[in-house]
């Protein structure tokens, strides 16, 4: 046992763990964060994979980071600097494209070119989405009440939730209900006629899920991705200077400034429990660190079945965790490029290279990509979201050279035949070849290529089945059902053992809300 005593140990230095640590340190707790890898960040890391080429290896864009966290932890002072991703271009098979630009008027004119009716509808749609995002925001900031409990705090929470819903008024409540239950394609069909527009928008409804654009439940994920803070834009995403790892570093910096201690290369083997109570953690190295409180920032499977002995837990909780769906469905291809790709639809350099490219020519294209995955293989023509970070932040690549980040879906974790080296290469080839249909010079520019299958994501980050949200954002895994009924309030049945990862409400994306809510819940419980 080390001499120094801690009040709280946070297992896992992902962004939620770091946020929780910062808030606890801010409240005067002596906090130790233990991170298995040699850098903090979890799936939000920047690494120099090839000499001179830096990559946001996994998560690569940000828009969901809660503004109160940025404010309360003073993250800009610690290096947070979000550069806007200004455009999205969807190349089409007929050589044309559909784009949205930073300037709303320009976007409107562009959409008019494809469908004047949709340009009209977009204004109304954008307003509705803003209202919906505002309707959901209070819920994201709410500790989920337990509908099965009779405790006064739960009843009060349910009442508050019910009042909030009623307060929306029938129109917004019903609109929200539709968003929560419909498929993104059906939902968008009610609004728009332009195929590529519907496809590109519905693509954000499938990210990280094992669902197609016509699967009910995807409209919510679409909204989830609409909740960026840069209001009004067609797609409000940003890029952190220095890569997403710099966000983690900023949060870690804030936590350290508030007094938290962070140790990397410190893999936790298990959480120590005596008589139903946490006493500390044991590291893989054999070292033991004592603390009366341990918070796991890992996903529910690891939190409940690896860090502790499931026998310590009620059987229904263990069964609930077993049923919790991960089903990682996305892969990442990171390219080091000798120069800039030349898109047939928009030749030459231009502002479009500073934005995103969405390979989503039609809803049917996405749906067929999903069909491949349903039957156990990766999509031969996948949905892809592509950015060239070095165009926005030149420090990411050597002068004149570039890095390209390709998010690829679908790549099922449970691929029939497994993820062999050959399969991984084939996935990388499919991604590059699919993009080459729209940017023919791409293959000749590739200097290095990193392909990360869901299995690789699991191996490197620990995320079970490579699920980027620590568990699917499906309706039956949200709010008081996330991760399991009765244990959605960050507590666990083991006294002193808590959870704060994205596998808890509200989860998903670089949001930090789970970490913050868990910290407050913990602080509130010890105050009582």
């Amino acid at each position, binding site marked *: 046992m080390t001499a120094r005593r801690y009040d709280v140990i946070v297992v896992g230095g992902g962004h939620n763990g770091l946020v929780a640590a910062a808030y606890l340190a801010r409240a005067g707790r002596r906090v130790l964060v233990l991170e298995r890898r040699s850098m903090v960040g979890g799936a939000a890391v920047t690494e120099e994979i090839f000499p001179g080429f830096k990559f946001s290896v996994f998560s690569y864009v940000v828009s969901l980071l809660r503004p109160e966290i940025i404010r309360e932890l003073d993250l800009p002072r610690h290096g947070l600097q979000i550069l806007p991703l200004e455009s999205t271009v969807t190349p089409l098979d007929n050589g044309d494209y559909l784009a949205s630009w930073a300037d709303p008027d320009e976007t409107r004119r562009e959409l008019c070119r494809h469908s004047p009716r949709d340009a009209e509808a977009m204004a109304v749609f954008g307003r509705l989405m803003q209202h919906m995002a505002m309707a959901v925001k209070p819920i994201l900031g709410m500790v989920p009440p337990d509908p099965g409990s009779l405790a006064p705090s739960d009843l009060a929470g349910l009442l508050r939730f019910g009042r909030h819903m009623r307060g*929306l008024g029938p129109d917004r409540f*019903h609109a929200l209900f*539709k968003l929560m*239950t419909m498929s993104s394609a059906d939902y968008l069909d*009610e609004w728009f006629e332009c195929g590529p527009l519907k496809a590109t928008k519905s693509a954000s409804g499938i990210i990280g899920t094992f669902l197609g654009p016509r699967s*009910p439940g995807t409209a919510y994920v679409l909204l989830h991705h609409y909740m960026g803070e840069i209001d009004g834009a067609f797609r409000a995403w940003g890029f952190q200077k220095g890569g997403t790892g710099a966000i983690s570093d900023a949060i870690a910096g804030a936590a350290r400034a508030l007094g938290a201690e962070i140790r990397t290369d410190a893999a936790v083997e298990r959480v120590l429990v005596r008589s139903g109570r946490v006493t500390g953690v044991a590291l893989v190295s054999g070292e033991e660190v004592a603390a009366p409180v341990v918070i796991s920032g890992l996903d529910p499977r690891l939190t409940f079945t690896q860090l502790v002995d499931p026998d310590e837990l009620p059987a229904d909780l263990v069964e609930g965790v077993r049923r919790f769906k991960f089903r990682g469905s996305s892969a990442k291809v990171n390219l080091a490029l000798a120069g800039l790709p030349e898109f047939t639809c928009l030749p030459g350099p231009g502002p479009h290279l500073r934005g995103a490219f969405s390979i989503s020519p039609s809803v049917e294209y996405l749906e067929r990509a999903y069909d491949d995955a349903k039957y156990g293989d990766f999509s031969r023509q996948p949905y892809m979201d592509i950015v060239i970070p070095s165009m926005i932040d030149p420090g990411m690549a050597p002068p004149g050279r570039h890095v390209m980040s390709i998010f690829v879906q679908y790549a099922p974790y449970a691929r029939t035949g497994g993820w062999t080296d050959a399969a991984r290469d084939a996935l990388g080839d499919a991604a590059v070849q699919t993009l080459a249909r729209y940017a023919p010079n791409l293959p000749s520019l590739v200097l290095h290529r990193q392909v990360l299958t869901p299995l690789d994501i699991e191996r490197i980050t620990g995320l079970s089945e490579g699920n980027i949200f620590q568990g699917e954002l499906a*309706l039956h895994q949200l709010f008081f059902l996330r991760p399991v*009924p*009765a244990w959605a309030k960050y507590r666990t049945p083991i006294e002193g053992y808590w959870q704060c990862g994205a596998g808890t409400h509200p989860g998903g994306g670089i949001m930090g809300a789970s970490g913050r809510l868990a910290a407050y819940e913990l602080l509130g419980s010890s105050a009582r």
Partner: protein
Amino acid sequence: MNDRHDVIVIGAGANGLAAAATLGRAGLAVIVLEQSGAVGGLQRTVEFAPGFHATPTAADDGWLPPAMARDLGLGVPVRTIPDIPLTVALAPGDVLPLARESRAAAEAIRRHSARDAATWPAFTAQLHKLAGFLAVLYQRPAPDIATTGLRDLASLLRVALGLRALGRADMAEFLRIVPMSVRELLDDRFECEALKAAVAAGAVRDLRQGPRSGGTGFVLLHYLVGAAPGSVRDRGYCRDGPETCVAALDALARRNGVTIRTDTAVSRILVRDDAVTGVALASGAEVSAPRVLSTADPAATFLGLVDPVWLDPELLHAVRNIKFRGAAAVVLYALDSLPQRGGLPAASLAGVVTLTPQLDALERAADAAKYGNVSEHPHVEISAPSIRWPAVAPPGKHVVVARVQYAPHCLKDGNGWDGARREALADRVSHLIDTAVPGFLDRVLHRAMFTPADFEARYGVTEGALTHGELTLDQVLFMRPIPGLAHYATPLTGLYLGGAGTHPGPGVMGGGGWLAARRLLQDGTGP
């Protein structure tokens, strides 16, 4: 036709008859107008070949809400539950019978998986319990947190307490299952493919979606409301014949003084100053009344019968966006005799026999519909009503009904359901049955095919949707038929909706009509 009526009810299906009976009992002068030659709507049987009768929609006998029966003093028809409500045809000569008696079912399942056999009894018991909570919701207007006035909060609270009364674990399971895909639900519990595919098929019934779609958990529960414990398919059948339920409702309505006119098609609902004044008939005649209760589906009512000038554009937009998506077809077979070989016991055909023993096969059949195509290998379920009711066929002969999915109403190639396509599908279905039940084809005397296009033409259901609107989560409970209109009244004074397109929806005999009539009475029937 010039008599004064207090209420005109459009449609003499179960909902129209239940509405009329309710209104007649309250002393109102009610006339029911039915376009076809007889009452019964989707439940009606037809003579599809000389001496052979069946229901072209392949509707089961549905569930008669006990609260409605009590309220109306309706004698509940005696039901017979097949010993084996559901059987999976695995290969010629090999079946998995899922008996209602759970020990017998477990015994059959054990041959495939001991683990599944152990899980089965608790699983069916849980489904029965959760469907029981839906039954509570289905005997009252849908609770709507957003539109409920403070006065009605007590009723909302009662529903919430009913949910909690399930107990902590089952309540959580209800909330989890409803939005889930039936595939996930089954994968969590079972390993036997045939078992999973059989249960899943009930959850995609009349849906243009496959078992991986969210919300199919709800559909599974929906069609199990009123089902016998242990059964995972259908609600059993009326002992006295296929039309017992509608006949009982018909008799009750007439006893309550209701006039029922068949062969009387309504062409328009007449409106003046935002209030209905009656209806115009296809014959050109007019029937006047200050109230009209339509049991036609919401699109047929609002887009087909009402002049759009009287309707708000937002309402029209919402109605146009209702997903109907008829995707089921039915083939009726007149058989010389039931095949003896093939290992399919007659006891199985008294219930439902599914010919799809793999989940992926079901999913692939659904994939076709997603792209606007007819399934190459459709999911087929067969049943022989002549075993239950020998009178539907000449002595010694039999009727086999095949439900087929997916046969989408809206086809991508734009050719529609022409004769060649209908026959091609019917041939494929016949071949599939003959493969599972060798000798079947040799015994077929006659067959009749009904596609969604036929359902649309015959019953007036939009897009051939027998559901009057797909049972997706955004179209059930307080969202049915459209948000804001879930409580049967419409923006037009005197116009009410009460068909299967309203809560509680398809398969509930008379539920929507009964609740709509009660709403009408509650609103008052003064001038």
